C-alpha cells in the first residue's frame, strides 16, 4: 500500500473540535466516509451473492448426488401437487359448475380464502421465529454490530433471509395450485404474469408483521416474558379450542352433503374478512383468472384485469407501508433489544431429580447398568432440548388431531366403496406416521453419533465397549419412537373402526417400521459420521442424512405395501357381494400370511444389516 493511499484513508491523527449540543466542547476524531444506505444494501446483496455462488459451486463439485436428489424430489413433489390440484379443480368444474358459475365461484373462493388465510397466520409466526434465530442467535450478528453498520440494515439483511426461508414452502405449495387453477379455468395469459407479483407482495406483509412482533417481544423481553407466554397460550387456546370443540361436538352428518358443506363454509367465514391480505390475494387471483376479453380503447373500471391490478396495488401499497414501519422500528429497537436479550439475566439452575427422569430410570431396570446410564443421558439431553421434542410434539399432535377427525370417513354405508376407502385411509395413515418418523430419525437420530464425537473423550474413556454405545442409541431411538407411533396408529384405527385383524397387522407393521428406521439412522450415523459439524441440522442435510431419508422412505413404502395390499384384497374378498365372484378368500388368506411374513423378513433385514454394519464401523472409528 502506498503511503499516499494510506494517509488518504486513515482518519486524521489530529482531533478536531465539534460542539456537542448538550455538553461542553468535545474533542472528536475525524471519521472515514462511511457507506451510504444504498451502498450498505448493495454490499449486503453482494455478500449474499458471493456466499450463494460459493455454496452452489461447492455443491455442484462435491455433492452432485445430493443436489440432484433434492432438485429431483422437489420437482416430483411439485408435479405431484400440480396433478392433485389439477384433478381437484377439474372435479369442481365437472361436478359443481364451470368457471363463472355461482357455486364454482363460491367453492373456489372458499378454498383460496382458507388456504391463504392459514398461510397468512403461519407466515407471521414462521418469519418471526426465523428472524429471531437469524438476528439474535446467529454468530455473524456480533460481527455486524461491532462494525459501523446501520442497525436497520442488519435487520433488513436478516429479514430477507427469514422471508426466503419462511416463504419458500409457500411458493412450493401455492405455485402448483395457481398454475393448475389457471389451466383448468383457461385463464388469460396475464393471469400467469400476475402470479409472482401478487404472491411476493402478499408474502411480504405477514412476514414484516412477524418481524416487527419479533423485535417488540425481544425489546420488552425482561418485562414481558411471562406475560407474552401466558398471552400466547391464551390466544392459541382461544383460537384452537373452540375449533376443536366444534369439530367434535358437531353432529355426524353425511360427508360432503349439503348440510356439511354449508356448515364448513360458515365455520371458516372468518377467513373471508376484507381487511385480510389473504383476501386481497384471493381477489386478485380470481379476478385475473376470469375470462373476459379486453376491449380495445378504454378499460372499464370493473373489468377483471383492472380489478386484479387494483388488488395488486393494494397489496404492494400495504407491503411498502409495513416495510417502512419495520425499518422505523428496526432503527429504534434493534440494538436495545439485542442488549436486553444478552443481558436479561442468568438462567435458572437445571432442576434435578425430576419425576419424569425417575420414571424413565425406573422403566429401564431391565437393561444392564451401563446401558441404563447411557439411555438416561440421552433422555435428559432430549428433555432439555425443546427444539427436538417441540417439533415431535407439533407434528405428532397435528397427526393426532387429524386422526381424531378421521371418523368422518366412517360412513354407516357398508358398500364396497366405503370399505375400500377406509382400508386405504388406514394404511395411508400408517405410512404417514412412518414418513414423519423417518424425518425425525434423519434429523435427530442420524446426527447423534456425529455429535458424540465432540464428547468422545468422556464416552471413549468409560469402561464400556463401543457396541454398548451404539446399542444404546438404537434402543433409545426404537423404543422412543415406537410408543407414540403405536398409539397414533391405534388411534387412527379406532376412529376408523377397522377390523381387529387390520389393527394387529398395523401394530406389527408399526413395530417393524420403528425398528428398521431406528437401525437405518443409527447404522448410517456410525458408518458416515460428520465430526467437524456441530449443528445437527447441517449433519442431517449432508449426504449421509439425505441417503438415510431416501432409504427410510423406500423401506416404509416396501413394508406398508407388503402388508397393505393382501390385507386390502382380503377385506374385499370377505365382503359377501364380491367374495365369491371376483376374489377367493381362501387364497387371499395365504397371501395375507405371506405378505406379513415377507414384511417381517424385510423388517428384519433392514434392522439387522445397518446395525451390524454400523457396529463394525463404530468399532474401527477414529475420533479426530
Amino acid at each position: 500500500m502506498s503511503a499516499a493511499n494510506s494517509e488518504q484513508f486513515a482518519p486524521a491523527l489530529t482531533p478536531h473540535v465539534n460542539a456537542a449540543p448538550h455538553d461542553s466542547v468535545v474533542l472528536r476524531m475525524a471519521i472515514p466516509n462511511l457507506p451510504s444506505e444504498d451502498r450498505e444494501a448493495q454490499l449486503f446483496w453482494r455478500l449474499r451473492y458471493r456466499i450463494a455462488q460459493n455454496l452452489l459451486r461447492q455443491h455442484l463439485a462435491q455433492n452432485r448426488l445430493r443436489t440432484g436428489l433434492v432438485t429431483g424430489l422437489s420437482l416430483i413433489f411439485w408435479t405431484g401437487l400440480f396433478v392433485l390440484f389439477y384433478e381437484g379443480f377439474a372435479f369442481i368444474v365437472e361436478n359443481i359448475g364451470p368457471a363463472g358459475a355461482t357455486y364454482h365461484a363460491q367453492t373456489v373462493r372458499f378454498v383460496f380464502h382458507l388456504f391463504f388465510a392459514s398461510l397468512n397466520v403461519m407466515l407471521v409466526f414462521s418469519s418471526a421465529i426465523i428472524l429471531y434465530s437469524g438476528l439474535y442467535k446467529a454468530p455473524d450478528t456480533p460481527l455486524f454490530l461491532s462494525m459501523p453498520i446501520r442497525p436497520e440494515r442488519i435487520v433488513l439483511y436478516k429479514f430477507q433471509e427469514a422471508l426466503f426461508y419462511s416463504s419458500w414452502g409457500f411458493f412450493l405449495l401455492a405455485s402448483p395450485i395457481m398454475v393448475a387453477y389457471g389451466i383448468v379455468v383457461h385463464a388469460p395469459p396475464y393471469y400467469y404474469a400476475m402470479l409472482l407479483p401478487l404472491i411476493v407482495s402478499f408474502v411480504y406483509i405477514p412476514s414484516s408483521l412477524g418481524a416487527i412482533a419479533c423485535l417488540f417481544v425481544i425489546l420488552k423481553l425482561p418485562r414481558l416474558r411471562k406475560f407474552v407466554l401466558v398471552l400466547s397460550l391464551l390466544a392459541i387456546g382461544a383460537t384452537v379450542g373452540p375449533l376443536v370443540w366444534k369439530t367434535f361436538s358437531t353432529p355426524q352428518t353425511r360427508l360432503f352433503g349439503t348440510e356439511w358443506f354449508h356448515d364448513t363454509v360458515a365455520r371458516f367465514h372468518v377467513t373471508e374478512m376484507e381487511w385480510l391480505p389473504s383476501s386481497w390475494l384471493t381477489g386478485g387471483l380470481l379476478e385475473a383468472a376470469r375470462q373476459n376479453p379486453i376491449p380495445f380503447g378504454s378499460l372499464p373500471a370493473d373489468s377483471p384485469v383492472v380489478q386484479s391490478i387494483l388488488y395488486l396495488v393494494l397489496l404492494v401499497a400495504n407491503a411498502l407501508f409495513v416495510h417502512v414501519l419495520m425499518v422505523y422500528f428496526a432503527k429504534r429497537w434493534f440494538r436495545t433489544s439485542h442488549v436486553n436479550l444478552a443481558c436479561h439475566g442468568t438462567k435458572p439452575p437445571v432442576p434435578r431429580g425430576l419425576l419424569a427422569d425417575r420414571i424413565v430410570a425406573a422403566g429401564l431396570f431391565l437393561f444392564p447398568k451401563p446401558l441404563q446410564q447411557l439411555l438416561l443421558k440421552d433422555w435428559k439431553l432430549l428433555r432439555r432440548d425443546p427444539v427436538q421434542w417441540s417439533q415431535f410434539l407439533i407434528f405428532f399432535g397435528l397427526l393426532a388431531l387429524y386422526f381424531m377427525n378421521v371418523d368422518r370417513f366412517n360412513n354407516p354405508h357398508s358398500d364396497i366403496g366405503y370399505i375400500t376407502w377406509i382400508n386405504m385411509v388406514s394404511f395411508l395413515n400408517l405410512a404417514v406416521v412412518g414418513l414423519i418418523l423417518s424425518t425425525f430419525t434423519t434429523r435427530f437420530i442420524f446426527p447423534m453419533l456425529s455429535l458424540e464425537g465432540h464428547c468422545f473423550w468422556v464416552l471413549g474413556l468409560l469402561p464400556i465397549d463401543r457396541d454398548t454405545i451404539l446399542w444404546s442409541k438404537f434402543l433409545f431411538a426404537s423404543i422412543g419412537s415406537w410408543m407414540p407411533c403405536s398409539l397414533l396408529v391405534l388411534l387412527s384405527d379406532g376412529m376408523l373402526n377397522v377390523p381387529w385383524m387390520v389393527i394387529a397387522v398395523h401394530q406389527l407393521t408399526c413395530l417393524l417400521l420403528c425398528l428398521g428406521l431406528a437401525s437405518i439412522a443409527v447404522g448410517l450415523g456410525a458408518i458416515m459420521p460428520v465430526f467437524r459439524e456441530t449443528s445437527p441440522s447441517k449433519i442431517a442435510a449432508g449426504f449421509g442424512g439425505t441417503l438415510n431419508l431416501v432409504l427410510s422412505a423406500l423401506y416404509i413404502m416396501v413394508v406398508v405395501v407388503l402388508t397393505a395390499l393382501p390385507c386390502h384384497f382380503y377385506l374385499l374378498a370377505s365382503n359377501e357381494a364380491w367374495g365369491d365372484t371376483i376374489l377367493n378368500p381362501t387364497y387371499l388368506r395365504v397371501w395375507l400370511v405371506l405378505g406379513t411374513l415377507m414384511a417381517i423378513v424385510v423388517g428384519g433385514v433392514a434392522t439387522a444389516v445397518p446395525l451390524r454394519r454400523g457396529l463394525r464401523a463404530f468399532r474401527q472409528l477414529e475420533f479426530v
Partner: protein
Amino acid sequence: MIDFQQVHRNYGEKTAVEDLTLHIGAGELFSLLGHNGAGKTTAIKMLVGLIRPSRGTIRVGGYDLVAKTREATSLIGFVPDQPYLYDKLSGREILHFIGRMYGMEHHQLHAATDREIHRFDLGDFVDDLTETYSHGMKQRMVFATALLHEPRVLVVDEPMIGLDPYSIRQVKDLLRAEASRGMCVLMSTHTLQAAEEISDRVGIMNHGRLLFDGTVETLREKFPSEKRTLEAMYLALTQKGASLAAEGGKA
C-alpha cells in the same frame, strides 16, 4: 482515545461491571487482567458496541458509543475471543466485504488487502474458503480484518489462546508495534507474562470492579515486601489469589 466514565452493567440481578472509570490514550497498550467472570469481556463488549452500559458513558475518539455508535465503531478494530468468519467465503472476499463496509474506496481496499495479506502471510490460503482454515490461520485472518481499515483503536480479547509460541511472539510484536505507531490498544488476557512484557499499563478487574490501573512498576511499589512477578502481585491483589498465597506461605 478510549474513555469509560462510571460505567455500570448488570445481567439481571448480577453485576458484571461496576463503576468502571478508565482512560486509555493514543499510542498506549493497555492490558486488562482478571479471573473468569471478572467483567473483562463485558467491558470489551460495551466498548465495541455489542452491549450498552446500564449507567455511565463510553467514548471512543470523542464519540459517545450509545449516541454515535456508527462513528465510534468506525474507529475500532476488534479481535474477539471467538471470532466468526463466513465458512463459504474466501479470506479475500471477507477482507473486501469488511473494507467496503468501512467505506474504503476500490484502490485503497486492494492496496490494504495486499498489505494485510503480506503482513500476516495469508498468501497461500487467502483465496480458499475459510472453512478449510486451521485455528492459527483463522486468528491471523481475524487480525488482518481488524487492521484492514487502519483503526485508531484496536480491541483484542484473549488473542493468545490456542496459538503456538511463534504466533504468540508475532502477536506480541504486532501489538507493540501498532501501539508505537500511535494506535490505542486494549488487550484482555490471562497470559500475565505477555501482559507484563508488552503493556504500558495494566488494569486488574475482580467482581466487576477495577482494582488497579497503572504500570507494572507502580504495582510493584504497592507490594514492596519482595520482588514479585506480575503473577504473584495479581494473585495477591485479588482475594482468591490472596487466600491461595496465604496457604502457600503456610506450607
